[in-house]
């Protein structure tokens, strides 16, 4: 296996992009990544997208996006694993370069979510759960995570305020990110007074609906050393795991076993443990998700994820800053693009390009991206080369 570098990164504008179609949003991000990489060709492409069919009625993105990017002869492939689509696309691109099959691979993710109304978006997102045995009974995605939250609160004593602290922290981080969709700060009181969606989760516990894309260019580390004038970033760990689609089929719904398994693989491959990670981007689709995930990743003891948010341990300046980009919560969550946007944040931090939200001395970062209620997860570790 060859060592693999992240040679270039790029993002489109994120938000409610009424004037831009999916194809343009993707091309904006991919072109930025190719320019950042300084390459004049790519050998192959993987694009994460959860459900363009339901959001904009368009499938066959492999053809459309390679065409509009002006690389229409290359092998291209759309990857779907619900909200982990881009994390999986990144892993496939990594494997393709590491194996020697291709030298320069573009990995990206895109979602155009605002062409449908709230009801259409709720339906599209719910397809990541079991349609016949969960969604049929009226449960929504916030509802599924709300059930996780209620069990976590009941078993471990996690408080409603601790959930709010996750949102407060991530919005504070996001306020320093010029690309965040909602770059404003929120307060604990503000979260607790926001509209109830599914008890105990309120609207400010939920990540937003977002149009956006992100992309990265991968190549062998040896080639990156010749091509790049920027600080080099390499991929040292990659883990990927799945779990049951129905939340009720898991013996422990607060454990997020797929995240745990993917992390074990990534840590082993990189030869490091949670204590060696300087900062992380994790999948905070709901505040409770960040709490469970940082426990599964080993950044907090079991049951203590809420305390970690409340104490400031996971804030910038703390021992393990989580979601310095603002996370899904503040930066936005175009579902099929999120996994690569996490890689963009990791790469910028490791290059020292993060401005006001720079983690001092960042040498090693981790990205965790998951689909559904944790039915699929990828974990990647990136380091300064």
């Amino acid at each position, binding site marked *: 296996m060859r060592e693999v570098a992240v040679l270039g990164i790029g993002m489109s504008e994120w938000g409610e992009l009424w004037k831009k179609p999916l194809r343009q949003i993707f091309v904006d991000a991919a072109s930025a990544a190719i320019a950042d990489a300084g390459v004049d060709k790519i050998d192959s492409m993987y694009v994460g997208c959860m459900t363009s069919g339901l959001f904009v009625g368009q499938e066959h993105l492999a053809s459309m996006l390679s065409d509009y990017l002006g690389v229409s002869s290359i092998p291209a492939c759309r990857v779907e694993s619900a909200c982990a689509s881009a994390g999986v696309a990144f892993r496939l691109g990594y494997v393709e370069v590491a194996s020697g099959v291709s030298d320069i691979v573009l990995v990206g993710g895109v979602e155009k979510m605002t062409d449908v109304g709230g009801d259409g978006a*709720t339906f599209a997102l719910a397809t990541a759960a079991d349609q016949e045995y969960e969604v049929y*009974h009226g449960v*929504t995605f916030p509802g599924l995570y709300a059930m996780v939250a209620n069990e976590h609160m009941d078993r471990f004593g996690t408080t409603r305020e601790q959930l709010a602290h996750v949102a407060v922290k991530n919005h504070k981080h996001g306020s320093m990110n010029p690309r965040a969709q909602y770059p404003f700060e929120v307060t604990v009181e503000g979260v607790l007074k926001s509209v109830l969606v599914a008890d105990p989760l309120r609207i400010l516990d939920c990540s937003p609906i977002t149009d956006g894309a992100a992309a990265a260019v991968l190549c062998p580390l040896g080639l990156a050393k010749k091509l790049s004038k920027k600080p080099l970033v390499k991929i040292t760990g990659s883990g990927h795991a799945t779990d049951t689609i129905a939340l009720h089929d898991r013996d422990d719904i607060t454990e997020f076993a797929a995240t745990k398994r993917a992390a074990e693989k990534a840590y082993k491959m990189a030869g490091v443990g949670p204590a060696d990670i300087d900062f992380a981007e994790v999948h905070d689709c709901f505040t409770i998700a960040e709490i469970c995930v940082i426990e599964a990743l080993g950044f907090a003891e079991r049951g203590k994820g809420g305390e970690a948010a409340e104490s400031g341990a996971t804030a910038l300046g703390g021992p393990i800053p989580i979601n310095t980009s603002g996370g899904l919560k503040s930066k936005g969550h175009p579902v099929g693009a999120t996994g690569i946007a996490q890689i963009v944040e990791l790469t910028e931090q490791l290059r020292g390009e993060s401005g006001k939200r720079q983690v001092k001395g960042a040498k090693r970062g981790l990205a965790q991206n998951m689909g559904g209620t944790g039915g699929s997860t990828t974990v990647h570790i990136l380091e300064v080369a």
Partner: protein
Amino acid sequence: MFPARYWREIPQRYRLEATKCKSCGKISFPPRSKCPKCGGTEFEETKLPEHGVVRTFTVIRVAPSQFVEQVPYAVGIVELHGGVRITAQIVDCPLEDIKIGQKVRIEFRRIQEDGNSGIICYGYKCVPAP
């Protein structure tokens, strides 16, 4: 809801049909052709136990269109006797009275209003049990 899609789940939704693995005894609901616990491929038919406890729950305030008229309503993960877990609505009690650990039993109810297909959807819901 397409008619075939609704029709083929009727054995589970109306009659609670499940399968029990002949080698390890694990009950699968809905039925599977491979046991998720031991990998066994031989099963006997069984019916879901109708009593269980609420393991966790939520109250849905923002609902999909087929459920809008029911808002607010409770949905929970219910662990039935024997260990099988299902997701179902919890009805016939004030929302504020629902607790983790509460005993419930399954009843046959209307689940969703008729949508574009004109099919009214039925199935199981949970009600408080002594």
